[in-house]
């Protein structure tokens, strides 16, 4: 077996950058939700400010992929890895944008009344952050079963989003003073639900990376009892 050391080094560097970006996106979700939970405006502002660094990392990784394609002519599995990386960084960048959106809403929510336990938003946030984490784990370990599990988890996330939506509507109906904050919280919920969708996209791309097949949401294999979530 010939080792293509230059190609493999470039792939390793790209993988490392991608995982760094993944952890920054995950961290942005956590910090945005923490800022929301305790009303920490400085923390919210830092999430907004840090988003530029994540955007820069995305362009840096795209540049790495451009160079890799131009100089190494990757084929088959190598080519899928580069193409997948380009998709993943785009999704991660958008995930970080959604976190930034939550941080901006936190600034708007300053000094407004809030429903108790934020109508279940922290639980939804934990679920979507976990989906992002598991999709990235599936990428690292090339684990399609885990990727499929992330895809299946999206239904539960959608249901929780629906429940939060209805709860917030009830808060608005019960107390006109809640109209503005509950509207902002609806937007927070929407941002989280979109992060869940993007985690699903990450997982689908991992399946493509491993199998070469683009999966349709509907054509995923039935849940394996050992991995069902």
């Amino acid at each position: 077996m010939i080792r293509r050391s230059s190609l493999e080094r470039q792939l390793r560097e790209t993988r490392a950058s991608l995982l760094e970006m993944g952890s920054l996106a995950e961290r942005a979700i956590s910090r945005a939700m923490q800022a929301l939970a305790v009303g920490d405006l400085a923390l919210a502002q830092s999430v907004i400010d840090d988003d530029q660094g994540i955007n820069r990392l995305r362009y840096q990784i795209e540049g790495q992929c451009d160079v890799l394609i131009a100089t190494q002519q990757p084929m088959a599995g190598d080519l899928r890895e580069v193409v997948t990386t380009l998709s993943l960084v785009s999704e991660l960048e958008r995930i970080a944008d959604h976190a930034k959106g939550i941080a901006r809403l936190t600034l708007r929510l300053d000094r407004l009344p809030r429903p108790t336990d934020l109508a279940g938003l922290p639980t939804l946030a934990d679920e979507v952050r976990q989906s992002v984490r598991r999709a990235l784990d599936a990428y690292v370990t090339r684990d399609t079963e885990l990727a499929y599990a992330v895809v299946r988890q999206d239904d539960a996330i959608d249901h929780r989003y629906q429940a939060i939506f209805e709860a917030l509507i009830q808060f608005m109906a019960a107390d006109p003073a809640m109209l503005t904050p509950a509207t902002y919280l609806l937007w927070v919920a929407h941002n989280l639900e979109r992060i869940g969708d993007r985690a699903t996209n990450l997982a689908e791309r991992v399946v493509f990376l491993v199998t070469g097949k683009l999966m349709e949401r509907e054509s995923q294999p039935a849940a394996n009892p050992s991995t069902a979530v």
Partner: protein
Amino acid sequence: MSLAKPMVAERLERPVSSRGHSMQIRGLSAYYGAKKAVDGITMDIPANHITALIGPSGCGKSTVIRCLNRMHEVVRGARAEGEVLLDGENIYGPGIDPVQVRRLIGMVFQKPNPFPMMSVYDNVIAGLKLNGRLDKREADAIVERSLRQAALWDEVKDKLQASGAALSGGQQQRLCIARTLAVEPEVILMDEPASALDPISTLKIEDLMQELRERYTIVVVTHNMQQAARVSDFTAFMLAGDDRVGRLVEVGPTDEMFTRPTEKRTEDYITGRFG
């Protein structure tokens, strides 16, 4: 339909629109003396498509392509077993004239090989002259048509009487393609047709192959995987085992072969990790 002499004229007279000739290789093995070089190749070559044969040096891809028009047996002691069908007829069948096979299944070689003492014009009709006399008007028409099909006409129309050897390497190769086209083949075999050419000439040959595919069935041997990926519709990967006998590993649509090959050995080769 017979490949014996009387039928050839009938084939060649068929209008272009009714063309579209496929080949099938069935259990083809090739030998040089007692040494087996290629073992049990079975694959289809669809009409009006480009099929690329790829594989490392010594895998037998050039031997296979030479078996497709009975050029292999020209080497002393060389022979082939199995069947190669052109439109269902075995070109190795009894009574088949190899000369006629080679007229219907033309070949372009790695190094441009125009006849050095002949003009551009005479080079194009050299194959037809061997097959009998041509009147001037007919010859003029064939020369122009062949050179146009080979995308060379505009470059040489004012110097048809110049020596073929005076052309650039890329032009010489297109002249050889024109020479092959002049006899109206059904299938064109190309053995590393661009490996001796510079990148611009190579791209011209590749463009030309795309145009020729409309009229002809093409098989190309190339060690340049990027070229196979660029030009072909189907790709066959061959590999020689420890016994140094070449075998077909995998054949499939080029898009799939270069993005998600089925066989690990194919993946290793096209990702450059074979060794």
